[in-house]
């Protein structure tokens, strides 16, 4: 007894009806199968690519944030050191010679810092503000916490995206397997038909 049910929606057909079905209707059945293949496999793959693009963007943002965090922590350190030395007078340190070209990053020169009342913080967009040490600590602390919070949000978004990519991948694999299975059944049925 050869299997006459090749596509799931053929369950509606009467047993053996396909053999005397008009060729046009048989063509429509094949077309419907092809449409399902296109929708699930091809468009599913395109959807995965879109997700991959968004994932790349989020990963880049995450890398930036992860690089910014240690910077903020270092600034906090320096301000804390300056505050600590307030009592003991001057601070002697070696600072980098930051020339306008920024090519000479590894040249150092001696500097003596006597006034530890205020620090200047670079706020970005060519803006630098002078703060007292306490205000600077508060501001940097706030920036650090904001950065940490946005990093958490980013990580959660990335996890959601990965789930969305995994689900179509699993579905595509299942559709493919089902198709292979059906082809095998059909080939297994055809030799029996001939004999």
């Amino acid at each position: 007894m050869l299997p006459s049910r090749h596509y799931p929606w053929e369950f509606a057909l009467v047993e053996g009806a396909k053999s005397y079905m008009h060729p046009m209707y048989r063509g429509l059945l094949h077309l419907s199968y092809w449409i399902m293949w296109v929708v699930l496999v091809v468009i599913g793959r395109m959807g995965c690519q879109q997700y991959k693009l968004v994932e790349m963007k989020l990963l880049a943002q995450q890398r930036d944030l992860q690089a910014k965090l240690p910077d903020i922590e270092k600034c906090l350190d320096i301000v804390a050191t300056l505050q600590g030395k307030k009592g003991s007078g001057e601070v002697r340190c070696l600072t980098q010679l930051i020339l306008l070209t920024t090519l000479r990053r590894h040249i150092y020169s001696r500097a003596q810092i006597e006034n530890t009342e205020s620090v200047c913080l670079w706020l970005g967009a060519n803006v630098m503000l002078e703060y007292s040490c306490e205000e600077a600590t508060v501001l940097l602390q706030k920036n650090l916490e904001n950065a940490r919070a946005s990093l958490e949000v980013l990580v959660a978004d990335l996890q959601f995206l990965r789930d969305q990519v995994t689900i179509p991948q699993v579905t595509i694999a299942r559709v493919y397997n089902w198709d292979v299975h059906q082809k095998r059944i059909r080939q297994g049925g055809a030799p029996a038909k001939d004999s």
Partner: protein
Amino acid sequence: MQQSGGSEMEVTWEDQQNINRFSKLNNRFHELEDEIRIAKETNDNLEDASNELILTDEEVVRFQIGEVFAHVPKDEVESRIEDMKEVTTKNLEKLEEEKDSVLAQMAELKKILYGKFRDSINLEED
């Protein structure tokens, strides 16, 4: 071919969620491995620094804070390095703990998924 098993089996929403959870844990595991490697390197660097400090006989040591080197008396440098070492060791312990828990959860999920799908699923590293 053994794939015939795969197309007969139903994949429920729970199975899909297990697969998603496994993928999340796998990614977190790789991130943790990188973080642990970096933490170990930092720890080693601090060890070397403290060893050098013992050998040196200068009174004032240039200690790097951010991009600036500050002249700091030797004792203060010692205590700072001790503090930094404590922080990195605690961090390393926390990361190792998280890695162990992630591995345990992955093993659980592997058992469940292999039990249901046997050959139709591959959860190993390439």
